[in-house]
């Protein structure tokens, strides 16, 4: 299994990562090698197997509909790189 440069760039765009041409080459090689390793799974017949998304079989526990937080704005905004008038500030968005 190999992955080409175009796919690497497309994946990087999806993941919001900027990749240099050298990184593209590096990923083409490394990801292809890893994906080859993963091809081993195709040897196992799994048509009748139920996918397993959780390590332990359990059902969700629900919480009661109660408001438990007061205003935590100051503490949370203090973590942000840029804020303005009680908001998180980001570069101008179009639309």
């Amino acid at each position, binding site marked *: 299994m190999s992955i080409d440069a175009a796919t690497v760039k*497309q994946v990087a*765009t*999806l993941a*919001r990562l900027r990749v240099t041409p050298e990184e593209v080459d590096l990923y083409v090689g490394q990801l292809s090698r890893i994906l080859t390793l993963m091809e081993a799974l195709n040897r196992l017949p799994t048509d009748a197997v139920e996918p397993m*998304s*959780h390590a332990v079989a*359990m*059902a*969700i*526990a*629900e*919480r*009661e*509909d*109660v*408001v*438990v*937080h007061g*205003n*935590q*704005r100051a503490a*949370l*905004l203090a*973590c942000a790189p840029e804020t*303005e*008038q*009680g*908001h*998180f*500030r*980001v*570069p*101008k*968005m*179009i*639309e």
Partner: protein
Amino acid sequence: MSQKGLSTQSGAEGSARARYETVIGLEVHAQMLTRSKIFCGCSTRFGAEANTQICPICAAFPGVLPVLNREAVQMAIKTGLAIDGQVRLLSEFARKNYFYPDLPAGYQISQYELPIVEQGALWIDSPERGEGVRIGITRIHMEVDAGKSLHEGIYGASWVDLNRTGTPLMEIVSEPDLRSSGEAGEYLKKLRAIVRYLGVCDGNMEEGSFRCDANVSVRLHGDSVFGTRCELKNLNSIRNVMRAIDYEVERQIELLEEGGKVVQETRLWNADLNSSRPMRGKEDAHDYRYFPEPDLPPLRLTAERVAALREAMPELPDAKAARFGQQYQLSRYDAGVLTSSRELADYFEAVAAHAASLGHGNAKMAANWVTGELAARLNRDGVEIGQSPLQPWQLGKLVALIQQGTLSGKLAKEVFEIMCQEGGDPQQIAEQRGMRQVSDEGAIDVAIARVLASYPDDVAQYRAGKGKVMGFLVGQVMKATQGKANPALVNQRLLAKLAE
């Protein structure tokens, strides 16, 4: 193209439109009326100061985890039952991955392969296809709402307010079963009435707690495959949904008639310009990379839990309308209007019950007053039935007074006006102001004699066969009695006198 609109085009092109069938599917996002958010304990109150209702969980800080709000599940189940859907005893949350500044986790927790409700339907009265058209509902799933980005008036930046982030949403997806903008409007009214009846959503489209996206395509009648669809967004009222659909249908037909092709895209409706435009393309094609949410085990419901909610279901609009038709002898139309909201229906029933308790159970008249005089008044003042200036007993008593002949329709309208302005008991108002209807034959005969004496020419005309004059004479008698005379009695006595 809105300027040249198809309606003004030649007959040939007009008939071109008739060859096309419109296909519409609606996706409604309804904010659920829980107190706290779906996965954390922040308040969902609308209108708070920016970012004062956020916590590390809904703001997706490192290491936090979601815990599901039980009430959101209850509300989704109720809605599923109300649309005759299948409530899945096993459903699952999934992550929908995309980057956006007001989506703090970089994914929306939603439901994908296993939604909580599948295969429902509701019935609408179609303007084109008639009564009782079934509109399928593919699914209802729960998901989180995103935050809000602010742009206007901010120099060189945008602001992010996460108060709304994490508010529970139900996404209600219809089948492509709607065939006109009118049907889309009816579907939305019905769905909104249902969620309001259930108390699971306030249905406020302007504030965005009940949002609708429309998928619209056209095809030639008889085609078996759907045309290419466009998704319409930013539709913040039922009127706008309908206008945007009409615009889109015309746009697509025109495109096809000119030999063009519809391109699948998302279009933003601009209500001010009465037109839509394609949304600026995202940086990449959508690839949401859905996968089961590892932080939340599957949601398992017991049949008992669903049954208990089914037991506790309130009477819903269709059932109530059917009952109103039977119990009160109302037309399908009146019953539909009166059951459009639970509050209105309750109000009407209280009016009718009060009138009946006074021995005058003419519900039809009560219905007329509620849908006529009162509705007009509320409409004029721009308020809902909850803010009605009249209590049901006031209107109920007024109806009783009319039926027992104490008040004429005209007098009743005056009393209604006074009650709206000043409040009070209609009977006392009528008595204090001497507004009692005159049903005394002697007094009416005196007034008739006076009128006949005053208008000999008209009497002669009547007797010569000009029946139309009758109305004028009745009017004069009513005027002579300051409108207090019982109109039926006036009619009867006048006919007798003229026949003499």
